């Protein structure tokens, strides 16, 4: 039972080590899907938006963690 629990924990930490970041990836992807299928934007622009959105999220989450560590 303990092995199973550890496997489940490992799987969770694989995809949601930073829960906030993992949750916020979804609206970025959903936003890109919306732009792609609901607007007439050229698809490479949607791709660029996807890259920039993920990049921005990564930078924000790294800085947020760094600030948190410094304050504590």
């Amino acid at each position, binding site marked *: 039972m303990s*092995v199973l629990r*550890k*496997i489940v924990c*490992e*799987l969770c930490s*694989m*995809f*949601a*080590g*930073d829960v906030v*970041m*993992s949750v916020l*990836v*979804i609206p970025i*992807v959903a936003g*890109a*899907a919306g732009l*792609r*299928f609901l607007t007439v934007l050229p*698809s*490479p622009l*949607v*791709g660029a938006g*996807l*890259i920039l959105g*993920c*990049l921005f*999220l*990564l*930078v924000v*989450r*790294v*800085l947020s*963690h*760094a600030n948190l*560590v410094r304050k504590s």
Partner: protein
Amino acid sequence: MIISVHAVTAISTSFLASAVEVTEAYTIVLAVGLSRGWRSASLGTFAALVVLAISVIALGPLLASVPLQAIQGPMGLLLLLFGMGWLRKAILRAGGVIPLHDENLIFEKQMHNLGSATRPNIVDAAGALTAFQGVLLEGLEVVFIVIAVGVERGMLLPASAGALLACVAVLSIGAMVHKPLSRVPENTLKFAVGVMLTSFGIFWIGEALRVTWPGGDLALVYIAAVFLIVGVAMSSYLRRAAT
């Protein structure tokens, strides 16, 4: 050219990721072997490897039989979550915000927790279970990466070969030195793997959204380059901010 970009990235990603995970698993197995005897360590390791091999053999072809269009989006999202997680942690470690993974320290802790066996020639259940758990948990990430990067365009075999090569390389070095492989640049490898997995994830999500990437599969390279440049810049900024 197009096939080789995919093959090279799939093989190198699974090789580098496996090198990191096998190094971590090796530390645990080494601690079990030295404290509880090599029979327990070997039994636990072998059992975990069987479970992992069955997972790849069962899941790989099963996922490969699903239409590509249906699997690209979910698999891309999982790769993106996994890759960004690794990259975030690697940037924080490289920037000195969180401590680096220390194999020597982990080895010492494992040795302390395991204690020593009274009869090292007999298979010890606690030792075998520790080795089993260590190899299984570290191996799960390798299995996911191999399947995720290998499921598209028949790359499962090359990706598995990359992972296997890393196992052989790390274990050969381990067999020679017989101590924790603390000189393996784990964070640099994790940084590289995080960049590559993030690139795969974004590329696949784009493909699922029918995005026409300029340069086709070469997009994998320039997406990775963007994340690498930003990651290196951020870790250097964090180092400077800490001083």
